[in-house]
C-alpha cells in the first residue's frame, strides 16, 4: 500500500514537471516570433524599413531601361493613399524621386505605418532606398493631406531579363498611442 502511494506521488511529480515543460514550450512558440525578427535584423535579411547606404561609385547603365510601376494600398483605415505617378522609367544606377500622397478622411488623428512589397521578389536585393516615408510612422490630423517622397536607385547588377518591376506600399493603422 505505502509502496503504491509513493508510486502515485512520484507519478504526480512527474506529471507536474511535464506540464510545466509543455507550458514553457507553448511560450517558446511565441518567443520564436521576436527571435525571428531579431535574427532577420541582425543578419540584415529583412531590413526593408531601414535606409540603404548609397555606393558612391555606382555607374549608370545607359543601355537599359527599367519600368517601375507604383502601387499603393490601405488596410483597414480611413485614409486615401496613392502615388502621384502610376509608373516611371529609369536607367539602372540612376537615382530618382517619386511622390506619394496620403489623406486622412476621418475626423480623428491617426497614425499609420507603410510596409513595402516588391515584385519580382529579388528586386529587394537591388533596390537601394535612401529616403522613404516607410522608415517612420506617419501621423495625420483629421483631414490632413501629405505628400511624401521615396528616393532610390536600382543597382545595375539587376539581372538583364528584368525590365519591369513593381513597388507597392500598404498602410496599416498603428494602435493609438504607438
Amino acid at each position: 500500500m505505502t509502496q503504491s502511494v509513493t508510486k502515485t506521488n512520484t507519478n504526480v511529480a512527474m506529471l507536474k514537471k511535464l506540464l510545466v515543460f509543455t507550458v514553457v514550450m507553448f511560450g517558446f512558440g511565441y518567443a520564436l516570433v521576436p527571435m525571428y525578427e531579431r535574427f532577420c535584423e541582425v543578419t540584415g535579411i529583412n531590413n526593408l524599413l531601414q535606409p540603404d547606404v548609397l555606393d558612391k561609385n555606382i555607374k549608370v547603365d545607359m543601355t537599359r531601361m527599367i519600368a517601375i510601376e507604383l502601387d499603393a494600398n490601405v488596410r483597414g483605415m480611413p485614409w486615401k493613399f496613392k502615388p502621384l505617378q502610376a509608373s516611371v522609367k529609369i536607367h539602372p544606377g540612376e537615382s530618382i524621386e517619386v511622390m506619394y500622397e496620403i489623406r486622412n478622411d476621418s475626423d480623428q488623428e491617426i497614425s499609420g505605418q507603410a510596409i513595402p512589397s516588391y515584385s519580382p521578389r529579388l528586386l529587394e536585393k537591388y533596390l537601394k532606398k535612401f529616403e522613404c516615408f516607410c522608415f517612420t510612422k506617419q501621423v495625420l490630423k483629421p483631414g490632413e493631406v501629405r505628400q511624401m517622397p521615396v528616393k532610390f536607385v536600382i543597382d545595375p547588377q539587376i539581372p538583364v531579363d528584368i525590365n519591369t518591376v513593381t513597388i507597392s506600399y500598404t498602410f496599416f493603422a498603428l494602435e493609438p498611442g504607438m
Partner: protein
Amino acid sequence: MAVVQDVHGHHDHHPSGIMRWVTTTNHKDIGTMYLWFSFAMFLTGGFLAMGIRAELFMPGIQILEPELFNSFTTLHGLIMVFGAIMPAFVGLANWQVPMMIGAPDMAFARMNNWSFWLLPVAGSLLISSFFVPGGAAAGGWTFYPPLSAQGGLGVDMMIFAIHILGASSIMGAINIITTILNMRAPGMTLMKMPMFVWTWLITAYLLVLVMPVLAGTVTMLLTDRHFGTSFFNAAGGGDPVLFQHVFWFFGHPEVYIMILPAFGIVSEIIPTFSRKPLFGYSSMVYATASIAILSCVVWAHHMFTVGMPAVGQLFFMYATMLIAVPTGVKVFNWTATMWRGSMTFETPMLFSIGFIFLFVIGGFSGVVCAIVPIDIQVQDTYYVIAHFHYVLVSGALFAIFAGVYYWLPKWCGRMYDEKLAKMHFWLSMIFFNVAFFVQHFLGLAGMPRRIPDYSLQFADFNMISSIGAFGFGLSQLLFLYIVIKCIRGGEKAADKPWDGGTTLEWTLPSPAPYHSFETPPVIK
C-alpha cells in the same frame, strides 16, 4: 474452473455495454478504442484520397470542383496524420507499453480516458467542416497563411480541431513518459527495455517538445484571423514566412513522431521471426535518440524556396543529410539481425521486410529532396508526394499493420487468417508501388501537387497511379475483414504464438487478461 476464475475474479465490476467504453480507464480498452478510431479515420482519409485520385484519373475537371479538390487534399493530409497514424501508434502504446514493461496499467488511467475521448470530438469537427458555408479548409495540411488567414468557418473548425488533437497528444505523451519512467517492473533497467518502449519514450518527449509549439502556431493564426494581431499578416507588419518557420519547427519533428514508433515495432518483429536477438541494441537506442535530436534542427529543408540566404540553405541541407546516418545505422542493424537467422515469413515479418525496402526508397528520395539545387526543382511537385508516401504509408502504416498482425493473437486470443493476411500484404505491396512509384516520374517531369488538373503529358502516369490507389484502397477492406474474422473466431492462439518472442507480453495468457501484471514480474 476455479483456477481460471482466479485470474480476474475479484475486480470484474466495470460497467457493461456502451458505458464500459465511455468510462473505461483500462489501458487495453483504451488501446482498442484508439485503434478502432484510427481505423475509422483511415477509411475517411482513404475516401478523400480516392476522390483525389478519381479526379486525377484523367486530365480535365471531372468530379471535384477545384475548391472542393483543395479541401480534399487538405483534409486527407490532416486526417491521415492526426487522425489515423498518430492515434494508431498511441493505441499500440496503450496496449503494449504496460504489458512490455510489466506494469498493471498506464500511470494516469483517468487522463488516458480523456485523451482518447478528445479524439472523436476533433475528428467530427474536421469532417463536419465540409458541410459549413465556405466548406472545409483548403489551404493544404500545412495551412500556410495567407490562405489560412482568409478561409471561412471551415478554417476555424480546423484550428479548433488541431488544438484538441494537440491537447490529446500531449496528455497521451505525458502518460507514456510517466508510465515508462516510473512503472517498469523491478529489474527492468532502461537499457533492458524493449525497443518499442524505447522508441515510444523518445517519441513522447518529441511530442511534449513540439506539440505545444503547434498549439502556439494555430493560436497565433486564430488571433490573426479574429483578434486583430498580425503575426503572419504582411499588411499588418507580420510575416507569412515566419509561419513556415514556426510550423516546420513542429512539422519536421512531427514526421519523426510518426516514424520512430514504427522503427520500434519493426525492431521487435525482425528479431522474433529471425529467432535472434536484435543486432546492436544499444546503437539502436542511440540512433533513435540522435534522430530525434537532429530532427529539431532541420526544419527549413521544407522552405528552401522561400528566399533563404545560401548559408542557411547549406546548413539545413547538411543537417538533413546527417539524419540519414543514424537512419542507416538502423537499417544496417535490422539487416544484420536477419543475417543467418532462422527466418520465417509470417505476415508481421512480411510487412516488416516490406517496410525496410520501401522506407529506404523513401529515405533516398528524402536525401534527394535535401539537395538544395534539386529541391528547388522538385519542391511542391509530385516528387515530394512520392517521397513522403514512401516513408509514411510503406513506412509508418506498414509498421502499424505489422504490429497489429503481430499482437492480434495476444489481444484476441485467436490467430488471424494467415492466408488472407498474406494476401493483404501482397496486394498492399503491389498496389502501393503502382500508385506511388510513378509519382516520382511525375514530379521530376514537373507536375505540381495540389492541382486538380494537369497537362496531357502527365496523363498515362496519373492513370496508372490512380489504378494503384484504388487497388490499395480496396485492399484495406480486406484488412478490416481479417481483423473482424479474427475477433469473431479462429484458431486459438497460444500464449506465445511466435516462438521467437522474448518480451514480457508473451508470458501472459492469450487473450491477455483484463488486468495483467498486478504483481510485477521480476526481470533478471
